[in-house]
């Protein structure tokens, strides 16, 4: 199979490329800057139809990972990368005769702020979700799934909180904050949260590629199926990095209100760096979100191979060797 992977420079992107190559698929990648992954590379902006068209030509399948993540920034930036970008990739794929399309989405596209407890994959709701990222990804998922048609099987995979050694997003930020003494627990830190070890997420995306005809038109949440209290997760990441667990706690309401204020300031000043707290983040940390994985595992014929305990050991080994 000839596969185009967009946004391959991310942690999970690299893993997916590695898995596909390992089993003999022909892989090429598309992103803004050279990745050094060692496969055929197409460079360009994801919302540039010409560049994307060139990249997708000749591919049988697409794994669309490219996205703008983050909790701050102007809506237009998210819209351009995630909404316009996804439409661009979907259109190009259809034009190029791609038969399998795996759109990488996020559970946040259906998260309207309440606790998610053993939740299934609810429909994406761009008008009700929180934050620019979730809203743009919700639009993107709807666009991708709407393109599902007899010629091209489209499926949306929503991995929840991917982490692993070398992860600069979740692990990197937590460790950086812990080092700076700025990591605090929101509320009691007891809300159960699902995460996904990176290898498992990559396995699931490859499984989705293989099972695309059977799961066409569906959205599936992917996690390790091992939710943990958020404080335990933070502590274990910080401990793996050889640091002291956080000792501050911020009451949930204070965090949420504070987050709102901080967001406004950052947005007004258009600061490029991460704010210390946003209301979205406070909500993510202060409410439970874990998912019913039965349907996903059946549909993908996939099981997470790496347990959380194993994942934390690997993370510790990674920090110790660094």
């Amino acid at each position: 199979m000839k596969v185009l992977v967009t946004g391959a420079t991310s942690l999970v992107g690299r893993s997916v490329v590695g898995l596909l190559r390992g089993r003999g698929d022909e892989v090429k990648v598309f992103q803004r800057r050279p990745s050094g992954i060692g496969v055929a590379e197409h460079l360009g902006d994801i919302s540039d139809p010409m560049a994307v068209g060139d990249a997708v030509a000749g591919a049988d399948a697409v794994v669309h990972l490219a996205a703008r993540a983050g909790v701050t920034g102007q809506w237009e930036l998210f819209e351009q990368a995630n909404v316009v970008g996804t439409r661009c990739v979907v259109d190009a794929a259809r034009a190029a005769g791609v038969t399998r399309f795996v759109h990488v989405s996020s559970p946040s596209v259906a998260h309207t702020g309440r606790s998610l407890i053993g939740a299934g994959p609810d429909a994406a709701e761009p008008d009700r979700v929180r934050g620019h990222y979730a809203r743009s990804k919700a639009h993107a998922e709807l666009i991708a799934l709407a393109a599902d048609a007899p010629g091209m099987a489209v499926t949306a995979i929503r991995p929840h909180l991917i982490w692993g050694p070398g992860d600069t997003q979740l692990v990197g930020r937590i460790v950086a904050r812990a080092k700076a003494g700025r990591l605090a627990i929101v509320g009691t830190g007891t809300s159960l949260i699902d995460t996904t070890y990176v290898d498992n997420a990559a396995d699931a995306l490859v499984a989705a590629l293989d099972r695309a005809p059977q799961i066409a038109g569906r959205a599936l949440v992917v996690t390790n199926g091992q939710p943990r209290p958020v404080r335990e997760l933070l502590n274990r990441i910080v401990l793996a990095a050889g640091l002291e667990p956080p000792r501050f706690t911020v009451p949930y309401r204070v965090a949420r209100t504070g987050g709102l204020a901080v967001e406004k300031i950052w947005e007004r000043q258009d600061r490029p760096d991460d704010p210390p707290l946003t209301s979205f983040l406070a909500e993510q940390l202060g409410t439970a979100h874990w998912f019913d994985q039965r349907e996903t595992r059946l549909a993908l014929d996939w099981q997470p191979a790496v347990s959380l305990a194993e994942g934390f050991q690997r993370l510790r080994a990674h920090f110790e060797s660094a």
Partner: protein
Amino acid sequence: MTSGPTAPAELPPPGLVGLDPQWSRLVTTSESSGVSRTWHVLDNQIEDPTATLLCVHGNPTWSYLWRDLVAQAPPGVRVIAVDQLNMGFSERTGTIRRLEQRIEDLSAVTDELGVQGPVITVAHDWGGPISLGWALRHRSQVAGFVLMNTAVHQPAESLAPRLIRMVRSRWILRLACVATPIFLRGALMLARPRLARPIRLAYQAPYRRADRRSAIGEFVEDIPLSETHPSKRSLEAVAAGLAQLADVPALLLWGASDPIFSDRYLSDLASRLPRSEIHRFSDAGHMISEDKDAAAAVYAWVDQLQESEQRPASTPVERDPLWSEIDRRSDDDAPAVVDFEGGAPASMSFRELALDTKRVAAGLADLGVAKGDRVALMVPPGIDLAVCVYGCWRLGAVVVVADAGLGARGMSRALASAKPDYLIGVPKAIAAARALRWPGARISTMEMPASRKRLLGVLATIEDVRSRGENLPEPPEPSDFDFAGIGFTSGATGPAKGVAYRHSQLQAQRDALIDLYGITGTDRLVAAFGPFALFGPSMGITSVVPEMEVTSPGSLTAPALARSVQAVSANLVFASPAALRNVVATAANMTSNEAEALQGVRLLMSAGAPVPAEILRAAGMLMPNAEAHTPYGMTEVLPVADITLSGIEEAGSGDGVCVGPPVPGVDVAISPLDFDGRATGSLTNQSGVVGEVCIRAAHMRDGYDKLWITEDAASQPVGWHRSGDVGHLDELGRLWIGGRMGHIVTTASGPVTPVGIEHSVGELADVVHAAVVGVGPAGTQQVVVVVVPRPRPRRPDLADEDLADRVRARVDITDVAAVLTVPSLPVDKRHNSKIDRTRISRWAEGVLSGRRMSKI
């Protein structure tokens, strides 16, 4: 006949919630006078039915009441639900239809509909007498009755007439029932919880204008409250006619919170229909079919009716009456019962007990207590209780034992449900009975002056009863098939359930205990556990009730136990684990003489709650010559299995606690769990299969009191008792218990039972107690372990990573999502030892969804 509004029958408007327009049809009948009448009828029009349900509504409803019965009709069952004339969407005839006429009307419509084959009538409210009147005219067709909150007889002193009498003054009647929809709306307000608006509107649909409502008033007016009322004789004829229908099986579904048809009417109907099964919903009201899933109950019962015709009757084993050992030793001056009621030991010999049993039985009979009457006993274990129990049994009265462990509220509910005819109590219980209005004519164990008797409404004292019975002949003996007693389950989930036993079943229980523990007439028992104390005299052994607070088993001290043992050189000791725990804790307070007395104990039994091995071990140290046993069982059947301390040690750890092999005469089988944790599998003895523990034994309960639905669900397959415990049999045939069915955690990879994990985690040196609960939706739950660590924390918290790691290392069968630490775990009040996992799970749900870290 007055002339009222007239209108032909019509079809209900479309869109009424739950009502399929296809069920509706219009039917024309003709009266004897030649006048024709048009009806609206719901009819699923099944041809050649195996049974027909003929459903009759009351006032002010219509056939809409029976929509669930039509919707859920099993294959082959025809359901006909009529709108009575002048009611619902049937014709407004312009004439008043009295009871007699309505019975005739119903017969006309069943003729017209060609109702063939067996018929089960189903009726609510004043539809009851009409349906029964129909049954009297169709005797050969009637296969069963279902009655819901109705009556065939109006006791003059009841509350209902007062309510109805008030409404019945002519102008109020017109105002409330016809001119305004007050009565209609008021009746609909009796539903609990409140009816949804679309359903209320559907009930009101045929009664939107005053000229459509005239029959609502006429129906109320047709209730015969006076001797001269035109329907008085018709109603009496129906009530009297029931004597001819006494062999017809009946199902009485009753909402206990009905201000009109109260429990009084339930008792009346039950006494007239001896083959009735009863389910009384303590939290439902008049609109029972709206409040509860009556349709499911009706069809379960119909199903059983059809099946039971094929079931062969079992031949019971002949056993001695419960009082036979007392009779046999009626010349024996050896102590039968010893208690420490007044602090000092008091004793009653077998001779005295034999005499007293007869006297009390005869005296109670003379006082008016009849065979089958219920007598609540609120007397602590001891001499008085023995006399009352055996007196009642000898007479054939049914003893109702609501123990104080249920709490005042629990006792009130239990007694309201059991509805004893008499209540024998110590003065404190008598005072409570008066204050809390417990049912039953009161009999005091203690003498009291006449003025006080009057004040407390005491009918007699036990001494009065004794002297009444002095020179009277013995009453005839009850049969083995007669009911002997009602006990109560602990009711950890919902109100306590009454569990009914017949004489034959209690005899079998006595014999099972004798066999299990090799009890002979020379044994002497100290029973610090109520239920067991009752059985001593029936086994013909001396029984001692030690000095302790009845409501608090943990108040038994080692010296008190030793003094009881000493008093009769007892060699058997039965105590709850809570009692043993305190005995162990107070062992140092014994004198050397007292400690010496315990050397003679050959058998130590403990039950009533899960018995930790270390308690048995520690108690065993005080009684070194005793073999420690713990029987497994429940209010519904005891003993089921039995294990010795050495058996427990041999079994080691596993998925649950080992309770030993089933005792002789008891069949134990497992109903395997499906993936969602429901015990849906067929019974099996295969080792290792996890499921609901099902039991069959001669000493099993007969049923649940007035809880037919519960009983039916707990009796699948027929003849077995579903224990509600989950467990498995091992390859040696031993039974292991993993917890309650309701406490199964249904994870995405299958059901997980809590007890095995709790024991495993409990073996960590710094864990005092552990509870395993599930959070999240059924089928995809996460396992949470809640531990009480040592030292105990001051408030609940997440376990630190170290403890969490060690807990997870002890659990290999499932992923543990969270480990929480708490200062203590909530336990049930009655036994003070059963972990309240339901409450813990609710708490964990909250905490793990990010809510405040509250106390449990």
